[in-house]
């Protein structure tokens, strides 16, 4: 289990990285925290010709809040954001979901944007970004475009990012005051990829449940209002509307069970939080 050969490019800025990626396209991959990509390299599932290390790029390490949007640069590690004092206020849902990402040891290296770029449907950060209606800032050379999370995630590890683009940052919009948040997840073990993860957001005019681990991308479902007495029926309808997969660890039926049960728990948590 050793990687195939590749050139290694150490970038001191995102400008440099964007340039190298634009030139090399599909043959190059960005190396950020490496917690998703490196296992794939070791198993030779991925064999890029060029690896572009953006972690030395100091301009990629920004965490800022501007106009009620939390802006997280490409080089921000998950542990950095988790330790950032403003997280709870800026993005309470993210504060709930981030501790579920891997383990302390992997969060110490893994980046927020790397997880988004990897677009694993079982992973917590794409789910959170989608639930919050966040955006991904993509760069091709010096040209930037913003893509809504709903359009960004297109399939299993498949995103709207073109091969010659890099993610410069992601943005998590702040929810209106009084929004309640809930996050629940079930994996085989703590720290594993989710079998099902549920993020709930409840505000005055909307009840949102976002589901990860079931379809190939995070799924959002909104209700204008959801009376607790209708909830079980609504969650059942939602569960059956999904394209539940079966794999080694979970049957399609179990995934639907979790949408029903865990969804209710996440909604309850959000409701309590909003109250």
């Amino acid at each position: 289990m050793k990687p195939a050969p590749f050139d290694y490019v150490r970038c001191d800025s995102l400008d440099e990285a964007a340039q190298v990626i634009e030139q090399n396209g599909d043959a190059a991959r960005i190396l950020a925290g490496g917690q998703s990509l490196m296992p794939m390299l070791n198993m030779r599932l991925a064999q890029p010709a060029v690896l572009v290390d953006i972690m030395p790029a100091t301009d990629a390490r920004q965490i800022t809040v501007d106009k009620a949007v939390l802006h997280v640069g490409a080089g921000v590690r998950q542990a950095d954001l988790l330790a950032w004092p403003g997280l709870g206020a800026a993005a309470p849902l993210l504060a709930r979901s981030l501790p579920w990402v891997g383990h302390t040891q992997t969060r110490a290296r893994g980046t927020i944007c790397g997880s988004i770029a990897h677009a694993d449907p079982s992973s917590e950060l794409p789910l959170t970004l989608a639930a919050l209606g966040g955006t991904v800032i993509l760069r091709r050379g010096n040209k930037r475009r913003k893509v809504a999370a709903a359009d960004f995630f297109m399939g299993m590890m498949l995103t709207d990012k073109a091969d010659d683009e890099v993610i410069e940052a992601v943005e998590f919009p702040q929810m209106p005051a009084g929004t309640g948040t809930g996050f629940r997840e079930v994996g085989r073990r703590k720290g594993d990829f989710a079998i099902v993860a549920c993020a709930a957001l409840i505000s005055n005019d909307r009840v949102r449940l976002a589901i990860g681990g079931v379809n190939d991308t995070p799924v959002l479902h909104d209700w204008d209002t959801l009376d607790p007495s209708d909830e079980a029926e609504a969650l059942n309808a939602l569960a059956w509307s999904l394209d539940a997969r079966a794999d080694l660890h979970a049957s399609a039926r179990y995934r639907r069970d979790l949408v029903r049960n865990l969804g209710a728990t996440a909604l309850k948590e959000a409701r309590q939080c909003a109250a």
Partner: protein
Amino acid sequence: MRRLNADQRHTVTLTLNGQLVEGQATPRMLLSDFLRHELAATGTHVGCEHGVCGACTLRIDGSMARSCLTLAVQVDGAVVDTVEGLAPAPDRLSVLQESFRKNHALQCGFCTAGILMSLDTLLRDTPDVNEDQIRDVLSGHLCRCTGYQAILNAALEAAETISKETKDA
């Protein structure tokens, strides 16, 4: 920007357990292999090479890291700490190491290097560490011998000793 050619070996210089050392690595060489086979620092062990078992955990610039998910060329210029650097002197043990011995927190000792590095980092960074925090960090490691309870006991005891020593000092 610096581009390192795939086929060549490149000099990697780092501070390993307080000593400035250097070695040669192709871009694809894993840090775990570089330490063990290039620098002959065999205390860091390799258990899965996909980042799950935790045996190869060490510290890069003060943070825990899986050395099997890190390239040797990435630590050029970095400060790397491994299990070989934990003891205060060759014939002595750190508080945590001593506590592992006292509590039978290891059997075969293969996964132990990584566990010690995670716990050492946690105890260093978290003055009033609690059991949940210890459990959470330990959940990033697989141990097949002990059933974990003895490791937890050792960590709790070490935390208490360190906390007492800090207060006394």
